[in-house]
């Protein structure tokens, strides 16, 4: 409190001091018969030369930062389409830098050059159709190039994956990602959010999971019914609000149970087969030069799976399946040599605000050879694999 008071007093004193200075300024203006809107040539020229100084500092800082931080220090794109994106970036940067330098230079230079002089009159130049046509047509041409190149790359990125693309699911929840590999058959088992529980965190559908979930719901409902009955008989004391809440909840669970039971008829052993060879992991291990088709799902809110090194990103939307494909082309080890950083790692970051710990949501990504992948998958005691829980 004392601190705040001192700060307040200092501010008040400062305001009073400045106000006094202003009065001095006012008086001198009055004595010199100077008006605010009058042009003081000296001040006007200072402003004009500051335009050029600013321009120099502006371009200077750009060059310095380009030299020091270049491409934001991101290493070369580590995916096939990422290389195309980087190429497209460079083309666009050339256009952008050219426009930036020319227009800013003209702007500040004209401001400097044509500063006020009492003996001069400005040139009356209301319009010129040829000039205006010029700067309609030239930007239009540049845009056409940018649009055509951009859409060609975009269609490549978003096009159909090749037949041998490996399907991997990325499942997002507050605040972690889980990967589910599709296994031998390269097909992911079906999933449903109503089946999500402690033993089936991704809600994968198998007969076993269905029956397990039904008996789990059954027993929860039974326990709750018991509690409700006991409250009604006066054996157990719950507050009125709590017991009302319990009734609503049990009714809701019964509706969910009904829907899960109905699901049983829709899925048979054929769906089990798809899910049976799936396995999950807490880190994402990819094989070099292998194309991947990623399927994204979310459990709670919108997340975004952002792979900065692969120049890839896709939102994970609850209740929807979004897709993206890419092919990593450098292993983690190769990237370490390229960057000269022995501790370099790939990463998957969450890039859509998803809650208080948003900035801590990520998953490690490793790129290796087929042999390394096999070793990773079969390693004893690999805590990053959660194979058992899908089956």
């Amino acid at each position, binding site marked *: 409190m004392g601190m*705040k008071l001192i700060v307040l007093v200092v501010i008040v004193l400062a305001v009073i001091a400045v106000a006094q200075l202003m009065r001095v300024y006012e008086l001198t203006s009055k004595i010199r018969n100077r008006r605010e809107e009058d042009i003081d040539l000296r001040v006007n020229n200072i402003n004009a030369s500051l335009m050029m100084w600013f321009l120099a500092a502006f371009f200077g*800082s750009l060059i310095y930062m380009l030299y020091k931080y270049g491409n934001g220090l991101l290493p070369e794109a580590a995916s096939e389409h990422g290389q195309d994106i980087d190429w497209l970036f460079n083309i666009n940067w050339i256009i952008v830098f050219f426009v930036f330098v020319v227009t800013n230079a003209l702007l500040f230079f*004209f401001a400097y050059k044509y500063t006020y002089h009492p003996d001069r009159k400005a040139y009356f130049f209301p319009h010129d159709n040829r000039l205006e046509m010029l700067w309609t047509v030239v930007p239009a041409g540049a845009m056409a190039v940018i649009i055509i190149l951009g859409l060609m790359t975009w269609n490549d990125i978003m096009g159909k994956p090749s037949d041998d693309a490996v399907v991997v699911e990325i499942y997002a929840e507050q605040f972690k990602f889980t990967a589910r590999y599709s296994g031998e058959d390269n097909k992911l088992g079906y999933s449903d959010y109503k089946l999500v529980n402690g033993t089936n965190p991704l809600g994968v559908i198998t007969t076993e999971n269905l029956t397990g979930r039904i008996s789990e719901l059954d027993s929860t409902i039974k326990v709750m019914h018991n509690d409700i009955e006991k409250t009604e008989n006066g054996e157990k004391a719950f507050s009125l609000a709590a017991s009302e809440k319990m009734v609503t909840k049990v009714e809701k669970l019964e509706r969910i149970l009904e829907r899960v039971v109905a699901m049983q008829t829709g899925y048979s052993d054929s769906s089990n087969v798809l899910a049976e060879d799936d396995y999950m992991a807490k880190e994402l291990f990819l094989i070099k030069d292998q194309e991947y088709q990623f399927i994204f799902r979310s459990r709670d809110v919108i997340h975004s799976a952002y792979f900065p090194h692969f120049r890839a990103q896709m939102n994970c939307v609850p209740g929807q399946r979004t897709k993206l494909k890419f092919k990593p082309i450098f292993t983690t080890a190769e990237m370490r040599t390229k960057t000269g950083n022995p501790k370099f790692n790939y990463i998957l970051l969450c890039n859509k605000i998803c809650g208080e710990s*948003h900035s801590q949501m990520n998953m490690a990504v490793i790129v290796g050879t087929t042999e390394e992948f096999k070793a990773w998958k079969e390693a004893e005691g690999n805590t990053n694999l959660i194979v058992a829980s899908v089956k």
Partner: protein
Amino acid sequence: MSAAAHTDHGHHHESFITKYIFSQDHKMIGKQFLVTAIIMACVAVVLSILFRIQLGWPGESSSVLSFFLGDTWAPNGILHRGMYLGLVTIHGTIMVFFVLTGGLSGTFSNLLIPLQCGARDMASGMLNMISYWLFFISSILMLYSLFIETGPASAGWTIYPPLSVYEETIPGSGSGMTLWLLSMTIFVASSLLGSLNYIVTILNLRTKGMKMTRLPLTIWAFFVTAVLGVLSFPVLVSAVVLMLMDRTMGTSFYVNDAIVGTEILEQSGGSPILFEHLFWFLGHPEVYIVLLPALGLTSEIVANNARKPIFGYRAMIGSILAIGFLSFIVWGHHMFITGMNPFLGGVFVFTTLLIAIPSAVKAFNYITTLWKGNIRFTPAMLFSIGLVSSFITGGITGIILADSALDIAVHDTYFVVAHFHVVMGLSAIFGMFAGVYHWFPKMYGRMMNSKLGMVHFWLTLVSAYGVFFPMHFVGIGGAPRRYYDYSVYTGFDENQYGMIMDLNVIISIFAIIGGLAQVIFIFNFFYSASRGQVAVQNPWKGNSLEWTTPVEHIHGNWPGEIPEVHRWPYDYSKPGEAEDFVLQTVPLKEGEEEH
């Protein structure tokens, strides 16, 4: 009270309340909007400095943070994670809606539309008054939400569901979000009343001779802005109301198959992406609702201070119209990576990049207006030049972001933050400052101190670029926005972490300098309003009609007849004239071409 009642200006006595509080006079309402917006802007700047302290010096105890946030939100002077997101959210909301929409349009449309069109007042003084008071109420609600126990709305200013629907996912989505939604609903009502009034006034109450092609570009910009507002804000209201229903009545417009905590929710069949479509259908025109008035104001100021006609008057009008039209068919560029159909994404790439053409025309026309001018560097002119620079610098990075193939690599990174702050934030706020310095004598009958204005400009320009220029590099490096800190980088790339932290410190320092520089403006504004040099009728030697009104405000604007208009407002330095300006009210000489 109709405008006609004022044709003979009696000295009717007004009480303090009808003159200063529930005023129906457009000039007073304009000033009310301005002062409210300045207060809101101060709050938003302070919020941004608070989160910049966290980003520049993460995890370090700061007495500034504990001073403003106390032990609840900054225990031991370290910013609370939830409050960080709350600060970011409310900073964005206040700046976009309350300062740059309500503040900019509200102030200058109100002040200048009747004065520059030659009208006694707005078409409906009553609606105009209600518009301000709704704005006031929504401002109070938004500020109030900062003080509630669970914290303000903290799902980002774009409030994407389901994060904004379920308070279990983030505490700010409790009553904080409810207040946000209520505040915005009232805000939109205010904005609609204002916009309708502007449109009607411009179309119906122009004085004799004031053809649409003789209107100053300010009025054209306000007109198109108002049309954009009327067409897009209702969509935001419906989006907001549907969200309120999802939150309170268990409907599922935006939510689908979600699990919150361990609870399986029944709401099913909606789509979070639907909200994004509705939001950005407003959200993109909103960018131009913010930008166009600033461009209009500076067109006027640049012509006036370069003592030259604005170059390509008709092309400028055409560009405003083209930008206005295109702004309605580009919203999807905010959603390239939501899983939308790639073909549709391609269509949005095309429409978005088309906007570059009218924007380029505007930029080159500004530059050509300076060419062979006779430039007076008033503070208003300095800020206008700043606007042209930031409009170009921010606009061209839009080319990168509009290209979906490139957006996929930088979407939602600091590159986006840098882009929209430069092109929309800086340009609009520079335009607003320029407008305040230029029309201050019209508002308060006094002059602002020009030396302080110049110091304010240079400090603001340097610190603004100091903040947002390095931010592009942070973004290209792949640093996501809305991150509390970047400690995750230490685990995978130390080099990049080093760069992000270096630049974040620089950015935060410039942000603090820039924030402090605004104290000069605030002081200059309030000091000059009460003690500044008394203004003359036409201090800047301008051509448009507002400079023919007396310095003292009178109800009805002109003491006698409304002046008649004979020419466009840009006859600066016209050959054959003794002075370098010709008022719009001066009849054309025989054989004189209009322009």
